């Protein structure tokens, strides 16, 4: 089962959902914080949901305050780097570029994409953590190729 877990994790990396930051987090996990990665992940999703909400509201208003949107996205990007959510981070970057270009439509499109990626990652990580818990004590993190 642990092999399964490892494979799932590997695929997350391979598919670009996660980057090295996730591995760094795993290395931080120790006896003092045996569920560190999962906790951080949960924290991230909780906080990022809030940010997404803010951005949603800002976009719904339709006024397109690009500065504010950019600022939100800056926060979001920073947050997403914390767990290594690389696809999400990429969408953040794109969004900010649209903001700087003043491209409202681009922003909207990108944001939809961002939410998709975010949601996808959340699902995958939830699966992963669940499986990992079932598999028993986690093996030490190994860097996938």
């Amino acid at each position, binding site marked *: 089962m642990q092999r399964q877990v490892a494979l799932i994790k590997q695929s997350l990396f391979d598919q670009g959902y996660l980057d090295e930051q996730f591995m760094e987090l795993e290395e931080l996990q120790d006896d003092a914080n045996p569920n560190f990665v999962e906790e951080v992940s949960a924290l991230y999703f909780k906080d990022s949901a809030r940010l997404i909400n803010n951005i949603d509201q800002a976009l719904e208003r339709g006024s397109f305050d690009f500065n504010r949107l950019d600022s939100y996205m800056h926060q979001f990007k920073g*947050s997403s780097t914390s767990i290594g959510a690389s696809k999400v981070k990429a969408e953040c970057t794109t969004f900010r570029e649209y903001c700087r270009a003043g491209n409202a439509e681009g922003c909207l499109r990108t944001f939809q994409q961002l939410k998709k990626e975010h949601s996808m990652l959340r699902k995958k990580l939830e699966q992963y953590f669940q499986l990992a818990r079932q598999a028993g004590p986690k093996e030490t993190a190994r860097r996938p190729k």
Partner: protein
Amino acid sequence: MEKSGFSPVGLRVLVVDDDPTWLKILEKMLKKCSYEVTTCGLAREALRLLRERKDGYDIVISDVNMPDMDGFKLLEHVGLELDLPVIMMSVDGETSRVMKGVQHGACDYLLKPIRMKELKIIWQHVLRKKLQEVRDIEGCGYEGGGDWITRYDEAHFLGGGEDVSFGKKRKDFDFEKKLLQDESDPSPSSSKKARVVWSVELHQKFVNAVNQIGCDHKAGPKKILDLMNVPWLTRENVASHLQKYRLYLSRLEKGKELKCYSGGVKNMDSSPKDAEVNSGYQSPGKSSYVFSGGNSLIQKVTEIDPKPLASASLSDPNTDVIMPPKTKKTRIGFDPPISSSSAFDSLLPWNDVPETLESKPVLYENSFLQQPPLPSQSSYVANSVPSLMEEEMKSPYETPAGGSSVNVDEFLMPQDKNPSVTLQDLDPSAISNLKLQEFSSNVTNNTEAILRSLNWEIPESHHSASLDTDLDLIWLQGERFLANTGLQFQDYSSSPSLLSELSPHLWYGNERLPDPDEYSFMVDQGLFIS
């Protein structure tokens, strides 16, 4: 001599980040580095914690983007008020932002995601700062000994044992006591880090002593200390206080200069640091002191040879493209520091940089820049403008300065159009235009050193709130200014009517007023250059 060493273990770190995920991660990472970690989600909260326990932390790590206060501002407060090393963090690695961080005194700028290895070495900054403090204090008013102290303490720290960690406060610096006492300082000086609280009365005594002595180069810490006649005060207390005072005054000078640039022209004629400046001043002693202080700032700055910043986008630092030839002989004229004396008087007592700072820029603005009230950020900008101006004038030493206080005023006018010009609005495109960059990069090397030498202790007492606000702002600005330029004094040639000559020559030698972004960027530069 105690064989005390230095150890990163137990380094007391304060982490400030509004992102809860990062806060958690950083806490874990820092704990893994065997540091003592305190986390904080708000800048104001962080300041409160820091002020509550002034010697309670060794280093601060803060994100640049905080919701309640600009990270750079926090950085400044911490650096100036508490003289702690500050590391900035951000997901944004844009050169201008990094530069801004360095200019504001950050000893490092980390990009998120942050790695363990980056955190493992942050203790270096603490050590470095401590060493520099010793050096700077020693260098500022003591007769010699600076060199050997430097060598000594470096060897001492770097070669020392591991028997002392940060947990044992200041034990590392007991050797300083010996050094300082060797200078026949009769006062029972504790380690350098024992912070003196400069109360109103104490400061008044200090100011009186300074005025009594007269011009700058005579006003050394020993003399001041003697005049003050405060038995428990040590020369090093006075020395560090003197540094800050000079900073403050020079900052005021710059403000005054902006305000009455036309009047300042006459000052241009005088040779450096002489009593000519005193003429027409209300308090000659003070004014000469101020003047010299300001001059010393310039001198120090000009010592620095421009070096290119790490970013490759900067042009050749030695090309004095901006400053037209006739400005070569420029120097800064100081307006009679009438308001500076009075402003300084009202500065007492000093307060913490107030939370109200950002909501009460009005007084300062009005008194120094004759501008309509602008948001706090603008006041910050305005503050730094004089510095920039001053810097602009130091062309003889290939400093890429180009403006004059006249221009600054012209600049300030456009503020009305764009009141939201802030230091934060750095325009990367302005980088290529700004020679100041190179300079600021050099200055920031000094900045670090000098800032760290400012052992500023601000009493908690509060008096007139609004006034304090502005004065604190002034003070901070002044401190930063001086921090960048140091205190050495040199001869400085002057050019009459510089200001009028320079009026057509705008900041960067092009016949246009830079746009607000550029302006704020320049101002930002100036803040740390002049």
